[in-house]
């Protein structure tokens, strides 16, 4: 991660917890306020001022509901209202003045009614449609990655640049994240009121797909071709990437990007109005490991030598998702041919590996098969194996890919004709 002028950092928090905490704070404060043993605060004059601001915020909320303003503008106004800590004081004061009625009226702010665009989390505090908890995690499956980028990014032209791509593809909006707790954000380090007009300038990121091991979608290590959505809390900014695609986008609140081959890239967001910048480093990796899980064993007619199994490949590392990657086993000859197999080879048998010549997209339905059939008697001990180069490339691209994993498939036979086939941790043994 890099930070330039404007103190860029990576966001990490989730609004759900913050909003819930805020609600609990309010409820707790109301309870405390209703406790007659506790002093009432703040002073009535301050309460009146806060209530006036509260009324003003409600008016802002109404205007936002009715006006077709851009999403970032709504969010900013909503954020300003939400950051107005004086409203909490107003509630305290109001509760202290009419405690029985208020206690009965308090509702769960997250269940509060309202327009689809704006909700009143509690009086005076509006939550815009960008509130992360209201947006489901993007559930885009790998095959739609290209379409997804196109849908979010769209053409790079002047007209489009003025539009909000999130409106066109709301499902692609990453969950907005808060970098710090509400309590931390409410005051500056010196205890003073924060400047609501300058929220932290930071890049949030969310991967399009889940990592098999459960690593968070905010991870900065991804698979080659794995799409990431970046945002700066809804602010419309200019985006650049030191590598990958698309290399730049101007005037976007969301930036969908990927690195099609292994490597690293730095993503930078720049606010064209303020000059603030923030950046984040992303590492894209190719598969570096391949394990096979046996799904089933082949049934063969008795009397002949052979064994086979259906396999499910598991590509590592497991903390990234290779759903946008294609896999190809490269052909090759046998190694360490001995005994029974050497004798047959001398008689003309071909033990070369002729794999599927086409790249196949990695997904959970992809299977492999490892087998040898029809070995004739008489039997004697012997073995051979294949060292298989495994090539990978970004899905829907051309080229021979890059070999990053070498796997081994072994064949052996005992003198009684029992055959064992093994591949990357999976094995099957069968007697004739």
């Amino acid at each position, binding site marked *: 991660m890099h930070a330039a002028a404007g103190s860029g950092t990576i966001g990490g928090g989730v609004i759900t917890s913050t909003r819930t905490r805020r609600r609990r704070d309010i409820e707790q404060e109301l309870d405390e306020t209703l406790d007659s043993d506790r002093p009432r605060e703040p002073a009535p004059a301050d309460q009146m001022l806060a209530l006036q601001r509260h009324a003003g915020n409600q008016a802002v909320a109404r205007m936002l509901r009715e006006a077709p303003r851009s999403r970032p503008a709504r969010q900013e106004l909503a954020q300003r209202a939400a950051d107005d800590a004086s409203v909490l004081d107003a509630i305290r004061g109001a509760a202290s003045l009419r405690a029985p009625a208020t206690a009965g009226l308090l509702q769960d702010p997250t269940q509060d009614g309202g327009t689809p665009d704006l909700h009143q989390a509690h009086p005076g505090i509006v939550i815009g449609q960008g509130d992360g908890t209201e947006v489901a995690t993007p559930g885009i499956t790998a095959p739609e990655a290209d379409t997804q980028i196109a849908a979010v990014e769209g053409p790079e032209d002047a007209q489009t640049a003025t539009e909000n791509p999130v409106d066109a593809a709301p499902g692609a909006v990453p969950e907005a994240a808060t970098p710090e707790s509400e309590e931390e954000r409410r005051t500056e380090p010196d205890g003073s009121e924060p400047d609501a007009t300058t929220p932290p300038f930071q890049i949030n990121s969310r991967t399009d797909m889940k990592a098999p091991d459960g690593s968070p979608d905010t991870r900065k290590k991804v698979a080659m071709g794995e799409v990431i959505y970046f945002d700066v809390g809804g602010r419309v900014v200019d985006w650049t990437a030191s590598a990958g695609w698309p290399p730049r986008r101007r005037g976007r609140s969301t930036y969908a990007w990927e690195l099609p081959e292994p490597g690293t890239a730095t993503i930078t967001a720049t606010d064209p109005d303020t000059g603030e910048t923030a950046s984040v480093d992303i590492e894209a990796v190719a598969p570096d490991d391949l394990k096979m899980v046996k799904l089933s064993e*082949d049934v*063969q007619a008795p009397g002949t030598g052979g064994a*086979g199994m*259906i396999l499910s*490949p598991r590509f590592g590392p497991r903390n990234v998702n290779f759903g946008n990657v294609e*896999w190809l*086993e490269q*052909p090759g000859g046998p190694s360490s041919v001995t005994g029974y197999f050497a004798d047959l080879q001398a008689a003309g*048998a*071909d*033990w*070369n*590996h*002729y*794999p*599927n*010549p*086409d790249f*196949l997209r990695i997904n959970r*339905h*992809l*299977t*492999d*098969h*490892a*087998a*040898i*059939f*029809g070995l004739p008697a008489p039997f004697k001990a012997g073995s051979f194996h294949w060292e298989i180069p495994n090539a990978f490339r970004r899905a829907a691209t051309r080229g021979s890919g890059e070999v990053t994993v070498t796997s081994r*498939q072994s064949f052996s036979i005992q003198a009684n004709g029992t055959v064992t086939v093994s591949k990357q941790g999976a094995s099957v043994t069968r007697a004739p």
Partner: protein
Amino acid sequence: MIEVRLAVSPSEVAADAVDQLRVHAEVINRGEETVDTQLVASALYVDGQRNFPWGMAIANGARDAREHALPPGERVSADRVLGRALVSEPGEHEVVLEVAGVRSPPAKVTVTPL
């Protein structure tokens, strides 16, 4: 009931270019129930003689999972580049694929002399 189709490409190749010979097998489920195509255990015949490299080739490698459970009306295919393990001698050759006892129409491949 399955239907088996076969193609060899290129259908005409020079003797010094047989390494590129590619076999394309296709199985279509013409029945009303899901079937295990048994393509992994299929047999290829070249000029009436069983081709053993095909046996090892088709029994190994990544594949469409539907090959083991093909729904009615759907099809799966598999390709293998056998090269000179398919044919190498100049002349016209006839290739037939047998899957679960069902034979494909013959495919022709011609190897032209140098």
